[in-house]
């Protein structure tokens, strides 16, 4: 009897689930991506980012207090323009999507390379600014999500600039390298402080991040009161 019912319902259920996933996925995908800031370097190069596994540790990057302190140092919206920091952060993310799409669409030429470099340096500036705040700021889930997203995006764009043809100028390359070195030191410190763990970056993080998270050990937990 149960087998008969199962055989009866499995086709419509499968059809419904399939249809629901396709239509629902199409509509909800942007919201799902915002729930998982820093999913992977590959995915984040498309303007997304986040972790599948560390929801409790990661909050919402756009409302992070560190974003309030850093976003207008990175993004110049002009003095007359009054903009909410979370809106400006979305503008930066939208810029990321544009850069990724241009690359995906194979629009070769200096413009795309410039855009990728600009995005890498913007996210590098953002991450550097966040790391320059008090170490304990990263105990806040929103701040931590912002940090993870900025770091992940920086390394994703840095990788793209490395692979870009024609290659970026040596001076631009050294700018990216400088950001990369500073961020790796900061990551190492925060791994030791316990403010960042491997799970925060998900399973598909950039190799540089994964290596530090794996090799470094937590020496203390500065978030514990």
């Amino acid at each position: 009897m149960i087998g008969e019912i199962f055989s009866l319902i499995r086709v419509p259920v499968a059809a419904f689930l399939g249809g629901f996933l396709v239509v629902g996925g199409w509509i909800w995908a942007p919201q799902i991506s915002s729930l998982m800031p820093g999913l992977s370097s590959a995915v984040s190069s498309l303007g997304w980012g986040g972790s599948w596994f560390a929801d409790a540790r990661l909050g919402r990057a756009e409302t992070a207090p560190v974003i309030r302190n850093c976003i207008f140092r990175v993004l110049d919206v002009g003095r007359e323009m009054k903009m909410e920091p979370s809106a400006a952060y979305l503008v930066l993310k939208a810029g990321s999507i544009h850069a990724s799409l241009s690359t995906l669409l194979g629009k070769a030429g200096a413009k795309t390379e410039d855009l990728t470099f600009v995005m890498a340096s913007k996210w590098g500036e953002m991450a550097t600014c966040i790391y320059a705040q008090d170490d304990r700021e990263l105990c806040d889930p929103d701040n931590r999500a912002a940090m993870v997203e900025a770091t992940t995006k920086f390394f994703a764009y840095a990788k793209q600039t490395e692979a870009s043809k024609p290659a970026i100028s040596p001076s631009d390359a050294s700018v990216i390298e400088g950001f990369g070195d500073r961020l790796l030191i900061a990551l190492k410190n925060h791994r030791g402080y316990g403010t960042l763990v491997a799970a925060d970056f998900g399973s598909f993080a950039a190799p540089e991040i994964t290596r530090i998270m794996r090799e470094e050990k937590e020496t203390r937990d500065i978030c514990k009161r």
Partner: protein
Amino acid sequence: MYLLKRAAFVLGAIFLGVNLLNYFVLGNTGDYLPGGGRMGEWKEAKIREACYPALESPERDGSLPKLSNDRHRVAWQDLTSAIEMTAAPNCYLVTHPNAICERNNRAYIVDYINRYFAKFDEMIDIAKRYGEAEISTVRDLWDSPRNRAISAALMQDTSNGRLIKADFGWTTPTAMKLMLDRYKGTTDNCPRA
């Protein structure tokens, strides 16, 4: 018989799937409001278009929701929604107080009231993660002069029977329940054509 059963399951699944998509994905929650003589077709509501100008530049209206401080965790999208979702019902209920008497308008307005309170609840739920200060920031945000005018209009409309519990069906917002119960059985005072 077997084929009939199978066809019934397929049709049932399609019906269920279509309705779930319509409600949760497309957000046409107004399709599921109770019918009857008082409620018309929400898609035909004239008040919707009549209030478009009120939504054009909400930033110019100083009485709409504003954040009381810079230290908040309200996302820009939520802030924009709070402003728009206040400007719209303010127009439907306060600027055009008799609009709710028309059946189609009533269906649309009831659906919008549901969304209005759902958005407030959603923002309060997010604020709860950050503690009392954030909850009070969100409450202050939703306590602008326009929000207070909407509350007064809702009280007025329930007290004179223009809005009754049956209009909301199973979707009655918690904030409205008390008001609707209090004035249960009131007949509406809408001007008769």
